[in-house]
């Protein structure tokens, strides 16, 4: 609901602002803690350099200023530093620092013998306090200044006003200049906080948008995955063949495809991979599947090369010209005959054939071109024929199997697939399939970077009719 999402965005804005402001205040606290130490060292140095000793003739003792700088200055800095170390970010910590900074002004003025230049410390300190971006710190700072000035006006006016008999309102003139500076600083603080909150709001809005986009993408991927899986063949009961096939979809990359389509005297087998991901890849695969199924059902005895060539025209027109996409498909289309003969066309991965006679795997190279790249592929398409003997195995797969990367970056490779097939060829086709998938999953770990599809087919032949 828009209202609820707006509330969530505002809450996130306040959370971000709070986190950033807390971090800023902690940084400022630590800055002032260091400043407290620096001021203490400076005060001691000032006392040592300007008034190290009090004299009476040739005899001398340590000057009071040294004790004042070391002890009073030390206590003055110690409590704010302790607060910063033990309670950073607390509002009382920065209020105390504001007081301490003003008291340091008074102490430095005292140690420097009332030098007018040392009074600049007050105005500089007020400016420093703006790093908190909190106007409240000026309240205790101003109170310290006002109390100091009123007291001096009453008991020692020349120490601050530089005249012997200032007018009764003279402290107001000094305070007025302080307030004048503080008004500007407070406006600056409020503006800076507003900017911080606006920046937090922008990030909250950006995060909300990202979240919406991710949710939309997730929905799209879910639709794409449902398209992929919904179109997979349910019937694997094929004459002359035992078969086991599985497709495992990755989270963000989709487009694998396999097909079994029984026809009189055998069946058609397809395996392919649409380049791309998401809903668009799913749509392209849907088109390819529909086109091929329609072609196969209308011409069950046609050559695979012919059907591929026609399907390519449909896919090229739809993908390139209508969808405006540059997606393409790697696809092998095989026509299985019950006598073990297989005619294949298309440019997908090499097929593996395990020969029962030798107990070894053979690689069957593929030649040709991808679908959807160019409008006519007739000249580039090659058709090959191979024959399976009884109990021979045919293993088809997509690149997600052989290109799965281990933690060290090495790909799984076709050799490992062949070794697994050879090792477990005596088992059922489902067992061989599961062992390959298990080995790849163990190799790649938890993250599946690409769809994985594997088809394991055993030619068992057909008993002659009696």
């Amino acid at each position, binding site marked *: 609901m828009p209202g609820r999402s707006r509330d969530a965005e505002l809450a996130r804005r306040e959370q971000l602002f709070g986190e950033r402001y807390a971090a800023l205040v902690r940084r400022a606290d630590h800055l002032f803690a260091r400043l407290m130490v620096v001021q203490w060292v400076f005060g001691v140095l000032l006392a040592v350099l300007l008034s190290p000793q009090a004299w009476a003739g040739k005899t001398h003792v340590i000057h009071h200023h040294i004790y004042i700088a070391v002890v009073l200055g030390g206590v003055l800095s110690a*409590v704010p530093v302790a607060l910063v170390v033990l309670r950073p970010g607390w509002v009382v910590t920065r209020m105390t620092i504001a007081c301490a900074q003003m008291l340091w002004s008074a102490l430095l003025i005292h140690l420097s013998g009332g030098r007018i230049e040392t009074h600049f410390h007050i105005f500089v300190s007020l400016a420093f306090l703006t790093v908190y971006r909190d106007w409240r710190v000026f309240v205790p700072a101003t109170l310290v200044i006002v109390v100091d000035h009123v007291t001096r006006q009453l008991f020692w006016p020349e120490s601050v006003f530089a005249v012997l008999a200032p007018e009764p309102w003279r402290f107001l003139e000094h305070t007025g200049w302080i307030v004048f500076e503080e008004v500007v600083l407070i406006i600056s603080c409020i503006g800076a906080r507003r900017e911080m909150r606006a920046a937090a709001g922008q990030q909250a809005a950006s995060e909300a948008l990202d979240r919406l986009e991710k949710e939309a993408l997730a929905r799209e991927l879910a639709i794409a995955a449902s398209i992929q899986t919904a179109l997979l063949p349910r019937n694997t009961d094929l004459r002359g063949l035992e078969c086991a096939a599985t497709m495992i979809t990755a989270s963000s990359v989709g487009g694998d495809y396999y097909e079994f389509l029984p026809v009189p005297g055998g069946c058609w087998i397809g395996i392919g991979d649409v380049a791309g991901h998401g809903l668009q890849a799913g749509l392209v695969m849907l088109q390819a599947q529909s086109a091929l199924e329609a072609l196969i059902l209308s011409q069950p005895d046609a050559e695979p090369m012919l059907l591929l060539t026609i399907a390519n025209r449909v896919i090229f027109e739809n993908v390139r010209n209508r969808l405006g996409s540059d997606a393409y498909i790697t696809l092998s289309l095989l026509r299985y005959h019950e006598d073990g003969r297989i005619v294949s066309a298309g440019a997908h991965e090499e097929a593996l054939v395990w020969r029962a006679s030798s107990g070894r795997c053979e690689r069957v190279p593929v030649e040709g071109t991808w679908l959807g790249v160019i409008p006519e592929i007739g000249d580039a398409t090659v058709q090959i024929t191979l024959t399976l003997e009884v109990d021979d195995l045919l293993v088809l797969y997509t690149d997600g199997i052989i290109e799965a990367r281990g933690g060290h970056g090495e790909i799984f490779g076709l050799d490992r697939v062949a070794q697994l097939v050879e090792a477990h060829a005596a088992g059922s086709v489902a067992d061989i399939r599961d062992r390959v998938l298990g080995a790849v999953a163990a190799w790649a770990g938890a993250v599946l970077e690409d769809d994985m599809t594997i088809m394991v087919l055993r030619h068992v032949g057909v008993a002659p009719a009696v």
Partner: protein
Amino acid sequence: MPARRLRDHVVFWYVLLGAWLTAMVVGGGYTWRDKLTPAAISADVPEQWPAGTTIPRADGLATLVMLVHPRCPCSRASVAELSRLMTDTHGRVDAHVLVVRPIDASEQWERTDLWDRAAAIPGVTVHTDIGGQEARLFGAIASGHVVVHDANGRLLFRGGITGARGHEGDNPGRSQASAAILRGLGRAVGPTFGCELLSAEELVRTSDAR
């Protein structure tokens, strides 16, 4: 952990802050008292220009004499105020700064930055006062002590010309000294803020030497 619990306890911090503020007020009061406590004043300040002094009295002009301890940090403010006083009085006074050197101190002991500062003021002549003999004549005990005599040798002002210990700025002492010079108003007394010119032992030795 008790320490951790204490750290997180707000009341602990408020109590600590209360103690801290109290310490600041008490410390401030102490520094203020230290700053405003004048040195002892001699009751033996001659009302007329002392007869035995080697300092020449100006003809037709007021004469100002300031006694300083060369290493007294507070007297920098006194010399700075003297500089302002000389500016304010526009050459209507002949000023002498006597820098006291204890009788057993080495040569040049009194040649400090304070000497140089005083010597740099137009219209001021700086002298060494060995053993504080001139200080005794002018009745000075503390560094920064000033006397102003009129052209006839009559005492117009005695005391300090700073408002506090080592503190520059307008103050009653300088104003009174200035009024004495410019308008001949006499018998003003101001507090002196500064180190003792001589220790008690040195005062005895100087007295014996005489």
